[in-house]
Structures are given as C-alpha cells and as structure tokens.
C-alpha cells in the first residue's frame, strides 16, 4: 500500500463485508502532537472475542474465497513501523471500532494520500450505506455525512459522476482551508 488512504479504503471493505449500514471514518492529522490517527467505526455484525485475538494473523480470515486476510495485519505493520499502534475493539451484534495511530514525523510513515477521494469513492460505490467522514488538522475539524448530503441532494444519486466530483471538491476545499488557516 503506497499511502494511508489505500489502507482506509481496504479497512472500510471489512465494515461493508460485516453488513454495516453506518460507517464513521475519522482522520486526524496532528503535527503539533506528532500524531496521525485513522479510525473506522461501524455497526456491522462485529467480531467474536476468539476472532478478535486472531485479527492480526495474516493467515486468518472469515472469508471463504481464500485463506489469507491481509488488510488488518498490513495496517498494523504500517502503524507499528511508524512508531504507532493499532487497536480493534468489537462487540458481536453491535459493531467494531478500529483505530490506527502513527507518529506524524516518522520517516517510515507513508503519506496520508488522497483521503477525500477515498471517502468519495466509498460513498459513491455504496449508496445504500450511510457514511460519516471527519477530518481534523491540529484539532480543527470538518465533518460531513451522507445523511446530510442526501437531505440536500434529494433524488440526485450520490453515485452520479458529477455529484461525486462536487462532493469531493467540497471536502477538499474544507480540508485545505483547515490547513491553510493554521499555516498562515
């Protein structure tokens, strides 16, 4: 994985596979505290304590198409090589929370990548699932949810290419404002 946005796309697939109808994504860049955090919380079917113990084992998966499950182990490896950590907590029937932390200035931390594009791809590809996306930079944040977007856009489908482009533009404008305001 070349950047952390790709890990995010990958981890959200687990939530979708768990039948989640709501997925909350949070990305927090905090150079002041030398910390970058990515979290994904869903209301999917959850993970049993036995499965949770094996979640970082690359040779464990709940799928049947193949015998490896590399998404979480790769993210853990990336987090730990960047001086960070990965935590997963889950309650069967209620959902799962995954949090990856990275040392912001660590040489081995991959770039964050285009998280706004990743969020829009996830939203547009799964219009039946509700997403909430929050991006913070040094404590100032921007948040948007598909519930708000659907309320504003009405009948316009979120997977329309022009709608996608507009939403991505809106998220990127707000994200870049958060950074510019603080750099100035």
């Amino acid at each position, binding site marked *: 994985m070349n950047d952390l946005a790709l890990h995010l796309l990958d981890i959200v697939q687990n939530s979708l*596979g768990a039948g989640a109808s709501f997925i909350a994504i949070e990305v927090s860049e905090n150079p002041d505290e030398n910390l970058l955090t990515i979290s994904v919380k869903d209301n999917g079917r959850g993970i049993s304590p036995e499965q949770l113990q094996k979640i970082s084992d690359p040779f464990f998966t709940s799928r049947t198409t193949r015998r490896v499950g590399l998404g979480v182990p790769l993210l853990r490896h990336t987090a730990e090589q960047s001086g960070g950590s990965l935590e997963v907590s889950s309650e069967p029937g209620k959902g799962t929370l995954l949090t990856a932390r990275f040392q912001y200035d660590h040489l081995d931390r991959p770039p964050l990548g285009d998280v706004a594009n990743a969020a829009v791809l996830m939203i547009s590809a799964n219009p039946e699932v509700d997403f909430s996306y929050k991006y913070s930079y040094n404590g100032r944040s921007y948040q948007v949810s598909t519930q708000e977007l659907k309320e504003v856009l009405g009948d316009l489908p979120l*997977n329309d290419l022009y709608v996608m482009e507009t939403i991505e533009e809106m998220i990127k*404008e707000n994200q870049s404002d958060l950074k510019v305001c603080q750099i100035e």
Partner: protein
Amino acid sequence: MTKIKSLDDLRQRKQQLEQGMEIREKSDHPESLVQIKVAMATCGIASGARAVMNAFVEKIKKEKIPAVVTQTGCMGYCYAEPTVEVKKPGMDPVVFSYVDVAKAEEIVDKYIRNNELLDGILPANYQTI
C-alpha cells in the same frame, strides 16, 4: 464556477446538477446502465484498483457513457488484480484481469462501446464472501 464549500453551496449547485441529470440517464435504474464493478479488497487496492476506479469514472464522465461504477470485494482472483466486472444491459457479466489505467480505457473503447473482448477474461462465477 463558484467553489463549493458548504451544504448551502451544494444546495445551490443542486439545480445545475439536476439539469445535467436530465441529459444523462439517471443512475437509479442501474439495470439500464453499464455496471462496472472494481474489486477493492486488499489485493486489488494494493495492485492499483483505486487508480483504475478513478480512470473509469473519468473516462465515462468525459465520454458521457451511461454507466455506474461501484466496488466489490475480493473475487478470489488475487493473482490477477486489479480485476473489474463489466455488465452491459441484457448481457452476461465479463470479468477482466490485470486492469490498469490504460486497460480501463481500452475496456471502455473496445468492450463497452463495440462489444469487442480483450485479453485476460476470467470466469464470472466467482464468490465474494
């Protein structure tokens, strides 16, 4: 064109988007559209599935092709990622392997536009669970 920064800005842009929708076909009848599914599991993403997905989105937008791009999980063809399933209305789905940005464009130009098949077609009887 003014920049979109808030939900109010988006509300104002809505009318313009709706007018565009009337010209384009609406995506709420997916059976009437070409459905492009990009496999986005770990194997696919690590092999470049996001770039492929963005390439399809750009190409069908640019060429105004009535299509919808979605994601699917691992098809079990990890060795051949990125894989993409294309289902044209009234036709059986076709799964393409080793898709990159150039091949995505080729799929649109040759298969979607002209029903011409490309190299590297995989069986479409995969399971994603």
